[in-house]
């Protein structure tokens, strides 16, 4: 059962910002993740600051320059079902549609999906692991079949979000508001590896909220998202492949390939991208790219399959181009 917390319903963005910042204060958007963390006592939740009624943070709009703005409170379902998204960013519609379950997609928001805490079962369970201030990453010696093969040390979580890898592949920018004003950055730079900061997964400071995500225009871009999981719904990716390419005739002019489920952040496979640019898609080009993507992988005892899986899924995504 949920422990006790105070509840604050923000009526304006400013109200939300004023009430965040103290320790133990957390944003509640859809609540699907923060309430789970509170209930499992993953960390202390003293104050829930609900931003769910801030209409200004909701909705999907296209600007005249072709870029797309998605408000942080837009639900995952709205993204999956948006004609604008389906038409221009089919990979994103796919990724959103692959998140969790219909009910969670109806309730969970984009901001929450990007900021959700990792699903490592040691982190979520009652283990005082390194990420929670303990000494040990239990995954190193323990049950690590779902853990990171890239960028892991010293904590082997994988980033849980399905939308994040796709948005990174699409070159999204994230907008953040805080007491001190607003800032924005490429979404790719938003996420941090455990060796940069073990206690968090992104650069959001206490007291800040994500307000929106901005996608550059997608004309000429083909995008796809391929998620592999153990069961057909309600399951995080074992591995996922977010792909965005711009073709120039029959050659690949631009490519972004981002892996989910393999690293503590959405993992941009730049070596693979290099292996693709300027080439015509073919089985051997795809195989080279796939091999390049996982070249530096350092699997743990139980997750070597992820190397094969990432390769297989990349191959499949590229051959479907």
């Amino acid at each position, binding site marked *: 059962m949920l422990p006790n917390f105070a509840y604050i319903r923000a009526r304006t963005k400013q109200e939300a910002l004023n009430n965040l910042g103290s320790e133990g204060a957390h944003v509640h958007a859809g609540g699907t993740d923060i309430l789970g963390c509170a209930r499992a006592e993953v960390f202390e939740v003293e104050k829930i600051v609900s931003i769910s009624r801030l209409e200004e943070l909701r909705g999907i709009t296209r600007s005249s320059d072709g870029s797309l703005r998605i408000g942080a409170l837009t639900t995952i379902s709205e993204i999956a079902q948006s004609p604008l998204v389906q038409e221009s960013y089919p990979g994103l519609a796919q990724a959103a549609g692959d998140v969790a379950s219909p009910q969670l997609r109806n309730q969970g928001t984009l901001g929450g999906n990007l900021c959700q805490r990792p699903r490592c079962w040691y982190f979520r369970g009652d283990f005082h692991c390194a990420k929670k201030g303990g000494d040990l990453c239990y995954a190193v010696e323990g049950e690590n079949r779902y853990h990171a093969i890239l960028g892991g040390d010293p904590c082997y979580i994988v980033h849980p979000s399905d939308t994040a890898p796709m948005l990174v592949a699409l070159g999204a920018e994230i907008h953040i508001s805080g007491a001190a004003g607003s800032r924005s950055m490429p979404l790719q730079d938003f996420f941090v590896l455990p060796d940069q900061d073990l206690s968090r997964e992104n650069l959001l400071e206490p007291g800040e909220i994500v307000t929106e995500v901005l996608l550059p225009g997608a004309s000429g871009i083909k995008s796809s998202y391929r998620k*592999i999981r153990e069961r057909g719904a309600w399951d995080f990716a074992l591995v996922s492949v977010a792909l965005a390419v711009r073709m120039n005739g029959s050659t690949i002019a631009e490519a972004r390939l981002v892996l989910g489920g393999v690293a503590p952040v959405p993992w941009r496979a730049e070596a693979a991208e290099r292996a693709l640019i300027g080439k015509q898609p073919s089985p051997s080009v795809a195989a080279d790219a796939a091999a390049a993507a996982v070249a530096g992988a350092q699997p743990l005892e139980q997750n070597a*399959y992820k190397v094969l899986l990432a390769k*297989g899924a990349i191959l499949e995504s590229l051959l479907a181009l």
Partner: protein
Amino acid sequence: MTEARYYERGPIPETPEPKQRQDHWTATKVVGQALPRVDAYQRLSGAAIYPSDVNLPEMLYGAVLRCPHAHAKVQSLDTTAAEQMPGVRAILTAESPGTDIPWQPESEGPASVLFDSVCRFEGEAVAAVAAATPYQAHDALRTIRVVYDVLPAVSNPQAALEPGAPKVHPDGNSSGEPSTYERGDVNAGFDAADAVVEETFAVPFLLHTPLEPHGCVARWEGDKLTLWESTQGVYNVQSQTAAALDLPLSHVRVIGHYVGGGFGSKLAIGKYTLIAALLAKQTAKPVKVFLSREETLLCVGNRPGGTMRLKAGAKRDGSLTALEFEALGSGGAYSPYGTGLFDWQIRDLYNCSNVRTKGQSAYINAGEERPMRAPGHPQGSWALEQILDALAEKLGLDPLELRLRNLTTVSQARGGIPYTSTGFKECLEEGARAFGWAAARARPAADGALVRGVGMGGCTWIAGAGGPPSTAIVKYFADGSVNLNMGASDIGTGTKTVMAMVVAEELGVPLERIQIEHADTGTTEFATASGGSKTVPTESPAVRAAALDCKEQLLVMAAADLETPVGDLQLHEGEVFSSRDSSKRMAVKEISQFQRRRTVVGIGYRGPNPEGKATCPFAAQFCEVEVDKLTGEVRVLRFLGAHDSGRVMSRLTYDNQVYGGIVMGIGFGLMERRVLDEKQTGKMVNRNWHDYKIPTAMDVPAAIESLPIEIQDLECNTTGAKGLGEPVTIPTAAAIANAVYHATGVRVTEAPINPTRLLELLAAHDQRRA
């Protein structure tokens, strides 16, 4: 180990033999039809009150503090802060008076008590609280300070038996001498074989996870205790609770009208039952204790996993010459039945004169097993059905053909007594025909990344005969409506619906006119728990006898009015008529004696099963899978279950069982496994429904076909029904494994089959071929 262990705890009473003459049904009017359930309205409108829905005035909420370690000794426990917490009304610890209760004294495992100072598994109960809201109860638990002496833990049976392993119990980890079985001369059998295959298999520990968590509501009125418990058997709960609390049986009333699934995990009480009763006593208020989902994954049962070595030999013609099976498993910290019935399929299903089996069970620091849908059988089937396919390949035979060449009509494991009926051959043949087996098998392999294959498996189930005791009462009222009283629970298999259909068959009353009282020790007759696929074959003959008793009485009364021999009279749709003289007829309502009595009460008992014979259900299941060789994903495309469970009593609920068993088997085959942090803490890492994955709607084919093989069994009992609820899940996972082999050439000997395992096997296979 007896069959009954799997659904009963404690002695089982006898019932008298039925006195009614019961001819075999030839044609039926109601039985066998596809009729909506009699309790559909209740279950669909929200009117059904499940035990977890019970809400009584002034009710408090109980919660249990559980040991967070796999193995620990409670050094000290301080509840002072908890006592001061808002809403707290009572706290129970090992120190509280009345808590020194032996836990499961009738079990063959080691002794324990309600709050044992040594916690031998994560989730063992340490203390409990009652408070005004469940939130407050949990708040209070958070403030209880326990100092544990954390002990080394052992999490798997192999490790447990190694010298120097941490000891779960002072006497060590062996659950006693291995259980062994032998017939014929196994060595000679292998010598005589033209082909021998041998393989080691492994299956994980699985969890029942019924949708309704375990728990109960307890209320005292003076020294009488009423429990609303989510259970498969109210009388089990009654007897166990009465024994534990030293109460007369008459003072314990258990009500379990609805139960949100059990699958074997709700055959017995839990510690929560006693905790609720004690908290209710202490506070003089009703107390509700329902476990959290996490708790249900830790401490209310599991299906044992383990390793199995199976060796099989056969002649060139496919006839089996020898089977040798060895299993190692664990029943957790307290049950010695870690490999119980793993070997049953091997002993009984296929004709083989030379069989040797051995099962060794070790204690580990994990929750205790409880029977789970066909205890031991799916595990053994995982090995047996796969080894048969391997043998078939070696012999150049079709897997179906190999099975057909090893049929038997006797129960070899029971000393060769005949089955009252076996439709196994028909299950295999007609199932294969309906599935299109031959054509699918012959299809050339695809060469892309997406490959398809078909697989099958057969099974029998040890129980499923049912048997005494059972008593049912049918009351026929003056207005032609009927009340059926029976003790059995309807765990979702449709017991109530089937029994109402039996009454309707005999008395010609429409289902809407039948009201059922059941699953309440205060008001209904004794029944054994609903489990073991034995509820329909156990209860339906008793219900039939009770209905016939009613009918006979009515006919005798009518005979007096009509002045005609009672033997000529028949009853149908509220009318009695003579089969010889069509002028002799009258409405039941008008029978003069009946008008005076207003009610006729019929009592029916379940007669004994035929001596010297065995009654078992049989089945064959077929499936088609698609494997993505690049990603290791396995998709089940279609399934067919051909089941011989005797008479089809109710078509809708019959088919539904077949679907449900197959779905559960898909979980076993493709995704389920309990994961303990074996190398470090021994704690369970996937104690929730997200990490312990069971199938969703996306994981099952819409195309599951149920093909009843309706063998007339004239001997088994008076309705001709055999059990169905367990065989439906026995061969499923093995059939999937065989299909994956057919598709890929890779034999996955360890369940589950999914990318986390299959990809590496595929890669190794490719390397070998290259």
